[in-house]
């Protein structure tokens, strides 16, 4: 007499999970949620005395076919999958930027001293009227380039920390402010234009107040583009794109 082979429920769930994963429109969180539901449904049927195989097939039928499901989710939030992808791109850019600044901070004394050795003091990068207010330790610092990049390094650490805290559900006011900016395309364009105008005006004002505009202007343009826009934009977008509840999503539902 043949012994009946035992139904492998875990393998069946694994196959079903692979079918869901083949749908690019279902995000990882949605797939986890559906799997939780499937497991709950299986447990419910098992409690009614059904076998593993019967419970799985009934639960699977109840949850529905992956493709129509994915189509329904796309209707609700067409950009959900892209948001997740852009989040990882932005986070990647931010980490690369951090790494770049980290390396530059170590290399900058050699690099800058070779090309801009005449800028010997940190206060040289500030306009005359600002220098007056600088504390002595900055004014007398002989490591201009190094300090310049250390500021960049601190900025990037702050940007990464901000992303971390916002995505963990902290800094609610910052998150609400970003929701306000990013949830409306027109608002985003207008605010970006306003921000760029203010930066240009500030740059123009600083440029005019410099004793050696060409030389100092280069520093300010680098400071704005590298340490501010280069960090702030990916940091803000990454923090906004990752919904708070996603951070609470476990690895295995």
């Amino acid at each position, binding site marked *: 007499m043949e012994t009946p082979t035992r139904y492998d429920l875990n393998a069946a769930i694994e196959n079903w999970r692979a079918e869901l994963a083949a749908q690019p429109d279902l995000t990882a969180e949605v797939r986890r949620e559906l799997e939780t539901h499937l497991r709950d449904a299986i447990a419910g049927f098992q409690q009614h005395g059904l076998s593993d195989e019967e419970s799985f097939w009934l639960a699977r039928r109840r949850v529905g076919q992956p493709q129509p499901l994915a189509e329904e989710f796309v209707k609700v939030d067409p950009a959900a999958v892209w948001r997740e992808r852009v989040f990882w791109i932005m986070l990647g850019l931010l980490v690369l930027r951090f790494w770049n600044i980290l390396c530059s901070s170590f290399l900058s004394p050699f690099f800058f001293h070779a090309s801009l050795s005449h800028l010997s003091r940190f206060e040289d990068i500030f306009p005359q009227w600002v220098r007056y207010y600088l504390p002595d330790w900055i004014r007398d610092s002989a490591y201009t380039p190094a300090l310049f990049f250390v500021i960049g390094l601190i900025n990037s650490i702050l940007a990464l920390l901000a992303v971390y805290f916002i995505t963990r559900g902290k800094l609610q006011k910052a998150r609400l402010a970003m929701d306000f900016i990013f949830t409306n395309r027109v608002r985003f364009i207008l605010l970006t234009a306003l921000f760029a105008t203010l930066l240009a005006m500030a740059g123009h004002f600083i440029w005019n107040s410099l004793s050696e505009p060409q030389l100092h202007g280069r520093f300010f343009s680098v400071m704005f583009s590298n340490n501010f826009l280069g960090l702030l934009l990916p940091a803000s977008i990454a923090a906004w794109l990752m919904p708070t*509840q996603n951070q609470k999503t476990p690895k295995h539902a």
Partner: protein
Amino acid sequence: MLAKDMVAASAKPLLLSILAEGESYGYEIIQRVRKLSGGEIEWSDGMLYPVLHRLERDGLIDSEWKEADTGRQRKYYFISSAGKKVLKTERQQWLTVHNTLGKLWKHQPVTI
């Protein structure tokens, strides 16, 4: 069995009403609706989640992954303050329909 249009139209007030009683998760919500309606309202299990996600996106409900009694993680939904306000409006609207039909069909009106 309730018509498809009616099932779709009643999904929002039903979900908000269930979550107004306390936090819940997808499977439990489906079971509750099935029990309350005596099996008349039959939701497709998988199709519940797009509706829940839409309500969450509209700010009417919130969600959080938590560990259930079984030790497994589950996504629990709960109603937001905006959701409570919308539920109040929905309730008034549905009662208006109910009372109007009730009068036509000689039933006793229901008040809030």
